[in-house]
């Protein structure tokens, strides 16, 4: 847990820095610049304030988060913004909703504000919309967190609902060697991920042991759900070779969540072999 010492150092430095002088001058925004290498830093929309954010534990996760904000303004002399009214609103732009419980914001002096109990309710894209009102002026900044994830459990795994590929520690890699080691095979869904209940296509890349694309192979596809004694609802086919060694697989579809296997049998001049991928949907 490398973040703990970093966090500790940050906490020591924060007070010192926020109360101390920041002698460096002169960038695009006057005197406003970050203090810490690993912080998130923004000038507010109208350029009135700077907001530097330090997330406890380094990353935002689903659940409760604590963070520190250092707020400065671009004036000569004391740049620490004190007595500001600050609100921090988490927002999911793709889902059009926020979070009802409000985080607690405590001013610790010299421009340092602690935000405690900031709740993010689900994984995905989040914005933190921060508004600052101080000395008769108001401005805002939006920090974006592209992929907020669930916190890692004690064994580094996401909690799961049942017997699935994740809890079985199966190899979920999308690049694998074929059974007899003849080919190196990789698949990629042409959707953003492998979707449930949507017919879609894959690209299958086949190379030999020397990393040379395998051209003109005959490939068949078979999918199965080992826990459910059935296969895919479709009969997918390799319909053409798009590029040397890159094959289009049409008609892929998965109709149940859980552990799936997809097996490709590859016949080529270099010999025959099969490769099986595990998927968790």
């Amino acid at each position, binding site marked *: 847990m490398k973040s703990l010492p970093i966090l500790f150092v940050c906490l020591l430095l924060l007070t010192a820095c926020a109360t101390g002088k920041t002698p460096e001058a002169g960038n695009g925004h006057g005197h406003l610049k970050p203090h810490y290498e690993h912080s998130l830093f923004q000038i507010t929309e109208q350029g009135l304030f700077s907001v530097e954010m330090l997330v406890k534990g380094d990353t935002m996760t689903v659940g409760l988060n604590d963070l520190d904000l250092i707020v400065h303004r671009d004036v000569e002399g004391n740049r620490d913004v004190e007595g500001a009214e600050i609100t921090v609103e988490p927002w999911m732009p793709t889902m059009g909703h926020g979070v009802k419980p409000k985080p607690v914001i405590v001013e610790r002096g010299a421009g340092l504000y602690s935000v405690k109990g900031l709740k993010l*309710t*689900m994984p995905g894209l989040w914005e933190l919309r921060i508004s600052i009102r101080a000395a008769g002026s108001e401005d805002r900044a939006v920090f974006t967190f592209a992929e907020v994830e669930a916190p890692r459990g004690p064994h580094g795994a996401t*909690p799961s609902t049942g017997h699935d590929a994740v809890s079985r520690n199966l190899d979920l890699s999308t690049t694998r060697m074929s059974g007899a080691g003849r080919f190196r095979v990789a698949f990629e869904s042409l959707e953003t991920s492998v979707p*449930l*209940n949507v*017919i879609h296509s894959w690209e299958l890349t086949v190379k030999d042991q020397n990393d040379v694309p395998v051209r003109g192979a005959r490939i068949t596809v078979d999918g199965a759900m080992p826990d459910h004694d059935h296969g895919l609802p479709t009969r997918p086919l390799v319909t053409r070779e798009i590029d040397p060694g890159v094959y289009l697989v*049409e008609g892929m579809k998965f109709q*149940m969540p859980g552990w799936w296997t997809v097996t490709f049998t590859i016949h080529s001049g270099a010999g025959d072999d099969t490769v099986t991928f595990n998927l968790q949907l």
Partner: protein
Amino acid sequence: MMRILMILTAMLLTWAGAGRAGHPDAHVWNMAEVAVLHSLWLGNLPPVPDDPSNAHDLDPRAAALGRQLFFDTRLSANGRVSCATCHIPDKGFTDNLPVAHGIEDSTRRSMPLAGTAYSPWQFWDGRADTLWAQALGPIENPVEHGISRTRCALIVKTAYREEYEALFGLLPDFNEAEYPPLARPAPDDAAIHALWQEMAPEKRRQVSRFYANLGKAIAAFVRTIQPQEAPFDRYVKALFEGDMETMAHTLTPEQAMGLKLFIGRAGCINCHNGPLFTNNDFHNVGVPPRAGFAPDPGRAAGIPLVRENEFNCLGPFSDAAPEQCPELRFMDPDTAAYQGAFKTPSLRNVADRPPYMHAGQFRTLREVLEFYRNTAGTQTAVPGGRPAISHGPLSAVDVDFLEAFLHALSGPIQAPGEE
């Protein structure tokens, strides 16, 4: 003594009730569960997909004409049957009968229509792969509307000529002398089939082209029939927002416990997944045939029928290019694997529409759940069929919870311009 017993019984009941209402963890969800709830949330449903096989499916004029046709009883042998006879708006666009009844009884239950535009397959056996082919099936079925496509052409020519021609161009000069009103492709009736075969190929093509257009107008209306937010969706939204208070007001602890089972040990989510609570796939879950009915092959019969359906996505009346029909092109042709398999119905509004299963075999949700509870996943209804049931052990209380939860899936059904 009797009095003491009664007091004791009352106390026990109160205690049991308090215990059940407690369920302190009912509204607590782990991250994996939250992700699953998100996948079921109606807010996660994409817009209705465009149907490339129907060039008119987005045209409001087609939907308006389709709506009129949907309710028009003239399109039937006895002048009393319309689409709405079995797909009744006030009953969630289905009826409350074990098997559909048009001109006579059919052999299967009327399917609900809300959200069906999302499905790649129509009917219990998926014998249509387009919404417009679905609309056309019952019209020529002798036990449903019982009317020929040729008679439909003659009716539309007088009743809807202007609306039809604005969409599809000039109607041919349909007349009874050259277009025998009974004529249709009729595998069930040799004499009527002969009438159809005696028509010139060009005239048959004209009638079938008209008939496809009729289906496309009805489909443009049916695609607008969509489920709306149910208590379950409000609950999930409140969960996203961390609003425990609204959660606790929206689902009872029993319903929340049922939801936990639904996505967990009861395994319902295996097939009833996604925002419409269906994977639109076909499964033999071992439901016995309706008393007095022969075993129904289900999807095993639907596979050849959809492939041969002249109104399918790859057919001469489809507006789609072949590459826009992947479901049909890559359909699993293994009929043996689909013996006795039927389409997974959506569970939205399921509590409002007994009886259940493809032939109304079960009168109540309770009966359905008890059937699943007692089905271990080894038996099949039809020899050679494959079982498709998988769940953990379920108690009678679990069934109570599941039943309570299913009531949380009922919301309004939207059908713009419905009568």
